């Protein structure tokens, strides 16, 4: 693909960011500015904030986030296969071959084994 084909993507980036940036600037300059110390505190329905929001706490679904990384990479591998499925499914002589299907079946089989493992280990859920 020629580099010129990517110009529209650049245009869209510029215009979209410009438009949203404009909105944010309008927000800063159009409204009134009457700041008070009370107004600038954290909003907690009138009560005084206790403790800092930067404190450490247990994050739920942390394991799921790790699993996401693994499965996302694996799903990314399936994209080229999907697009090239027709080329993979013909022998040089032109007959239909199950080569591409078998290869992916092996891969998905491993994926299913991995999923079953984390499922049985109860890694998916409220830990």
């Amino acid at each position, binding site marked *: 693909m020629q580099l010129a084909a990517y110009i529209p993507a650049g*245009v869209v980036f510029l215009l979209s960011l410009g438009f949203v940036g404009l909105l944010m600037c309008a927000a800063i300059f159009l*409204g009134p500015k009457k700041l008070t110390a009370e107004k600038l505190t954290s909003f907690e329905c009138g009560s005084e904030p206790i403790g800092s929001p930067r404190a450490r706490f247990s994050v739920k679904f942390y394991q799921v986030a790790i699993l996401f990384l693994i499965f996302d990479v694996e*799903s990314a591998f399936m*994209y080229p296969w999907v697009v090239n499925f027709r080329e993979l499914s013909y022998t040089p002589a032109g007959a239909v071959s199950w080569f591409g299907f078998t290869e992916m079946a092996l891969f998905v089989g491993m994926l299913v084994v991995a999923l079953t493992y984390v499922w049985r280990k109860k890694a998916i859920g409220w830990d």
Partner: protein
Amino acid sequence: MLMIFLLGALKWLGLIMVFVMPVASLLTWAERRQSAMMQDRLGPNRANIGSVRIWGILHFVADAVKMLFKEDFVPAKAHKTLFRLAPVLAFAPVLIAFAIIPFGPTIHVDHLFKVLDPYSAPSGGERLQIFTAEFGMLFYFAIASIANYGTTLAGWASYNKWALLGGLRASSQMMAYEVTMGLAVLGMFLVTGTLEPGAMVDWQGPNPLHWGITVQPLAFLLFFTAAIAETKRAPFDIPEGEPEVIGYFLEYSGLGFGTFFLAEFVEIVFVGALMTTVFFGGYHIPGLYQNGFYFGDWFFELPHVVVAVLQVHAFIFKVIFFCWFQLLIRWTLPRFRPDQLIHLGWKKILPMSLANVMITAAVLLWLGL
């Protein structure tokens, strides 16, 4: 070079400013009005200009003006830069993702008033799609995942515990559904053999029996579910639920809040456009080919310009239908619990999408491709 630049800008302005933004703004009103109708109330119907009061449609103008002139401030302890950056990161990606959506047929300027040849289109012409690339849908997945940063950063930068927790819920939800979203559509990519939305629309054509919904109904169901989960709306509004769940944009005021709010409605329009493109034949109308209508033996010839206008309107109609459908879902279903959400994404949709891909591949081979 300059021509490509200007054409891109023109198409963006046409799609976003003339269609997406007005529809998204109207949806802010339509959502309240539709929920009111479904709950036997009246809803917002009062906004008017003089005696003009079209069922209160003007509420979206009133809301926009009010939001523009509200005080917009950064809380003292918030991280100033990230606090301002977060709404941009939440909103801009959706607008960018619209680049891959084909919203009309290829326009041949010098053939506007002629009837096109049914079997071969004239060379050249300008496709009504801003960015055509072989990796089209991957571009969307990549761009859409940037929106995660917007919500998570908004929660963290606010220096507020509730906002932080809301941001974390948003990130865990989007992570749970990104994998399933990518895998759910694979079946459709397999059938069409392409990732490019324009090519997928061409493949589907004007015959509804050849549309994604007919050839890949399960993929549609799974993808639509995952897409709604990505927009963070009911029944998946765990990160932020208007009446009772405090979310990541708690500390935002004025247009900062407005940007998050509007981003959600633009996402609804985008999901509508995506479903239309991938599963409902894009801009095609059943029976309308590039030279006119065919219904069995009956044929009605139409010039190129009329066909193009009809097809753009078909796209708009389908997108608005899906917006309405998403509002309907929102006001019909109750909210999921976080563990139910993870359960649905990982233990139901994920295995089903994998099975769908492999069965689709086997059927394709069995039919001889």
